[in-house]
């Protein structure tokens, strides 16, 4: 068990920020740390907390140190504070301070703006762990369980990263915000998480894979834009988090991919060519492709909502202040200030979705969302390749941005997945084909039976092509504690 009285902040908390020398942060962390441990302990069922999990720990940021694999009990995981190495003479990459030296301290005028961005980012990190807390009970394999826990501990570390920034740079306000990050709880009526999608349950493993593919990718895009921050410590923190985030999306993409693979296999084995022969396919205990499309529709559209309004003052302020850049800001060839540029966004005119030009500054959210969509399309193409390999006539598609939205100009309007306005009746009729129904949920839930034997996989999902850390197929990724 972690000794909370005598935490050595250089050994138990891997860091490259000189934690043991930093009196101010140490004092704050000492106060915050027990609350974090309590939060973790109350979260995931005890027998998993006591299990030995083959996890990757980042102990330093150099290529050798950032992925150390070993068995560890999760409460003893070494959540570290790691920033990507400082780039010498880095300058502010965008906005009105473009080209000036990057800030190493918080500029007073942007303190609140920065704090808010960090708090919002920080709030999503523990939220997803909360959403996924019970999934281990139905893990389709020890391999998947291990991946889940890897994602969880790293989200925990991301929380640490944000808390470090709050403690280090935002004084008493920062400490209070750090406490509130533990006070809010996903789905809580009392104090819900800040963003809607992070208060939805992750009820099953397909949801988890979709979540890590689509929603973590929103996280990735947010981190990418914060990695472009003129506030250097934030930029460095986010750059390092991105290396971990890539693994989360890998878990999502391969998870969905393996589900698809298994479905195609079973269809072939049983001579089923029609992907819409749902009853027969389900009779065989795998998830039909149309249902996977429905899950995709749901998670993709929920994630689009996370990007906020099409035209946003906050995003414009943050960009202009040099606090938050665009995806790959440095590779974009424009003036990085955008004071007279425009950008094309969707708008609603006479009930129809149309594209129009708006000042580029106010469309920063949209631009990031467009980059997101392009990024998300990549994996969808690879999923289609799997189906193609089996010669099944089916293709996954990202729905139109107007479909099933709760935020922005299309919010709560009856658009179909093609982006066409339909009547209320058509919408009601189409909905069971576009989004998972309760019955679909029941079916997926019926498949969610744990498979805890090393090297074994639940029927609905194919094994991975390669193991984690190149381990063999029957490797025991989690040594379950049997209390």
């Amino acid at each position, binding site marked *: 068990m972690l000794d909370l009285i005598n935490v050595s902040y250089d050994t138990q908390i891997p860091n490259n920020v000189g934690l043991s020398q930093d009196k101010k942060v140490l004092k704050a962390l000492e106060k915050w740390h027990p609350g974090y441990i309590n939060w973790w302990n109350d979260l995931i069922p005890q027998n998993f907390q006591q299990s030995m999990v083959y996890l990757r720990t980042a102990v330093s940021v150099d290529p050798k140190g950032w992925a150390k694999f070993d068995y560890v009990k999760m409460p003893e995981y070494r959540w570290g504070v790691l920033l990507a190495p400082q780039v010498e003479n880095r300058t502010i990459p965008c906005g*009105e301070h473009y080209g000036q030296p990057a800030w190493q301290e918080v500029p007073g005028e942007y303190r609140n703006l920065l704090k808010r961005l960090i708090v919002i980012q920080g709030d999503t990190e523990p939220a997803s762990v909360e959403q996924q807390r019970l999934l281990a009970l139905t893990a389709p394999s020890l391999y998947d369980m291990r991946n889940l826990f890897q994602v969880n501990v790293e989200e925990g570390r991301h929380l640490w990263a944000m808390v470090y920034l709050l403690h280090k740079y935002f004084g008493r306000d920062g400490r209070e915000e750090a406490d509130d990050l533990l006070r809010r709880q996903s789905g809580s009526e009392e104090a819900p998480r800040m963003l809607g999608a992070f208060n939805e349950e992750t009820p099953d493993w397909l949801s988890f894979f979709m979540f890590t593919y689509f929603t973590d990718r929103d996280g990735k895009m947010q981190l990418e834009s914060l990695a472009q921050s003129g506030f250097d410590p934030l930029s460095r923190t986010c750059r390092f988090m991105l290396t971990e985030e890539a693994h989360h999306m890998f878990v999502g993409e391969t998870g969905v991919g393996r589900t698809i693979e298994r479905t195609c296999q079973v269809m072939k084995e049983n001579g089923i060519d029609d992907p819409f022969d749902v009853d027969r396919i389900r009779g065989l205990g795998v998830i039909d492709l149309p249902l996977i499309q429905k899950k995709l529709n749901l998670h993709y559209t929920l994630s689009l909502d996370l990007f906020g309004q099409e035209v946003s003052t906050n995003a414009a302020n943050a960009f*202009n202040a040099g606090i938050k850049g665009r995806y790959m800001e440095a590779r974009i060839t424009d003036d990085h200030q955008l004071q007279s540029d425009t950008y094309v966004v969707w708008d609603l005119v006479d009930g129809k979705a149309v594209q129009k030009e708006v000042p580029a500054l106010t469309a920063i959210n949209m631009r990031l969302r467009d980059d997101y969509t392009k990024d998300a399309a990549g994996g969808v193409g690879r999923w289609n390749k799997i189906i193609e390999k089996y010669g099944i006539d089916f293709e996954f598609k990202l729905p139109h941005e107007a479909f099933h939205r709760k935020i922005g100009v299309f919010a709560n309007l009856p658009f179909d997945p093609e982006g066409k306005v339909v009547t209320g009746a058509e919408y009601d009729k189409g909905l069971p084909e576009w989004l998972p129904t309760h019955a679909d949920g029941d079916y997926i839930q019926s498949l969610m039976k744990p498979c805890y034997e090393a090297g074994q996989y639940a029927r609905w999902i194919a094994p991975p092509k390669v193991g984690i850390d190149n381990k063999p197929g029957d490797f025991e990724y989690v040594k379950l504690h049997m209390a």
Partner: protein
Amino acid sequence: MTHRIDFQTDPSRYRHWRVEYEGEIANLYMDVDEQGGLFPGYELKLNSYDLGVDIELADVVQRMRFEHPEVKVVVMQSAKDRVFCAGANIRMLGGASHAHKVNFCKFTNETRNTFEAAEADSGQKYIAAVKGACAGGGYELALACNYIMLTNDSSSSVALPEVPLLAVLPGTGGLTRVTDKRKVRRDLADVFCSVEEGVKGQRAVDWRLVDEIAPNSKFDEVVQERAREFAAASAKPTGLTGIELTPLDRRFDEDGSVTYSTVEVAIDRAGGRATLTITGPSDPAPASVAELQEQGAQAWILRAARELDDAILHLRLNERQIGTLVFKTQGDPTAVLAHESLLLANRDNWLANEILHYWKRVLKRVDMTSRSLVAIVEHGSCFAGPLAELLWAVDRSYMMLDEFEGDNRPLATVTLSEGNFGPYPMGNDLTRLQTRFLGTPETVDTLRGHVGEALEASEAEQLGLVTYAYDDIDWEDEVRIFLEERASFSPDAMTGMEANLRFAGPETMETRIFGRLTAWQNWIFQRPNAVGPDGALQRYGTGVRGDYNMERV
């Protein structure tokens, strides 16, 4: 006229508010229709408001008092998710003319004052039940309520972000109520007004910004429980029945004149003035409060107040070139007194009480009108009781002295009533007579000895009740020259001079809001740092910050 702003509405036309009446408790929901802006060019997102939203609120508050006297507690809340109210719409402010902004600000202030006073005046206590973001004008709405509850969900906060965000002030009473009403310590208030995101949770209670926080899961329940407690503790009688505020009898004419049943507005564009003539009652006063209740909105004394109120608002917003308002009356002063005395004798009756308070508000509205105000006391006039108050609300008054050739109307008189010694205080909490005779308080006692006497011009002038009394020979020239001179002065200097001279005496929260906060706000609203092409208000939403001239003025 391009687009006349109408201050009359009714529940069937509301687009932004909704009331659910449950006996003694009314749940008032703010649910602003994004597309329902009064002018084109902005959307009322996040429960932000413009004048149209506030006109409805003023109507809600007014009807609450007259149509629903059974209500003891009003719970003001948002029907939207995650936002209570985001305040005045910034794009509307950015696009509005200075004059519109100032008038908007004044009307919203008057509306806030009205529901704030509803507890003391009418036994209707307003609770603000705040869930979600409550910023700027949103918090100012809450501040004007009598009790503020905030959900403790670790993200809902109250905030006054105007200074850091927009380079203007929380000008709808915000700064003043924080210090004078909530009595927030000034240094904490300074912190509070400089942080965009505001204050949440326990700290909001500790700093006195809200009265109570409640757990989010139980919030609605606790709010309703508190509402029931307040209703139970109310001293107001139970089971009162209201009267209906029927639509005004009103007609607009091509030349700009407006004709109501008992008020008439004539416009003289060339002279830059409007003449408001109030006609006294033609029917005898109701014999009892029962009869008053039966007459309802048709009772002369209520009708006259509603019509005068609407006329003033109409002139303020829709006739901005009219610099001088001339008040005249015609009728029988004893009839006016008879109608008023029924109210004064029955102040414990809810309706009599409401009408008196309404006259108080209408007269304050006159005080607050930034036009040159003048009363012309002609023969045949009825400046008595509440109408006599107009004589001391205006900047100057002229009274006809002795008989005029060819004028067979009764000689002009001024008649005081007990009403002139208490029920219609100004914003400074003094009566108009107390304010007028600030240096000789004994004069007010002397005047009280004249209650009920029809005072003719020389006596009225001698007692200081009118500025000048002129006879037939001088009258026409003196009045004409005064009006012409007035119309020639700079309207800015006039507004400033009049506003300073009208409100002698002590400061109250109300005078501080209108005299200090609003004046500063209106100055800031003229400054390039806020409204210049590179100012914060113009740039808001573009992402580019205001470019400030750092010179301190």
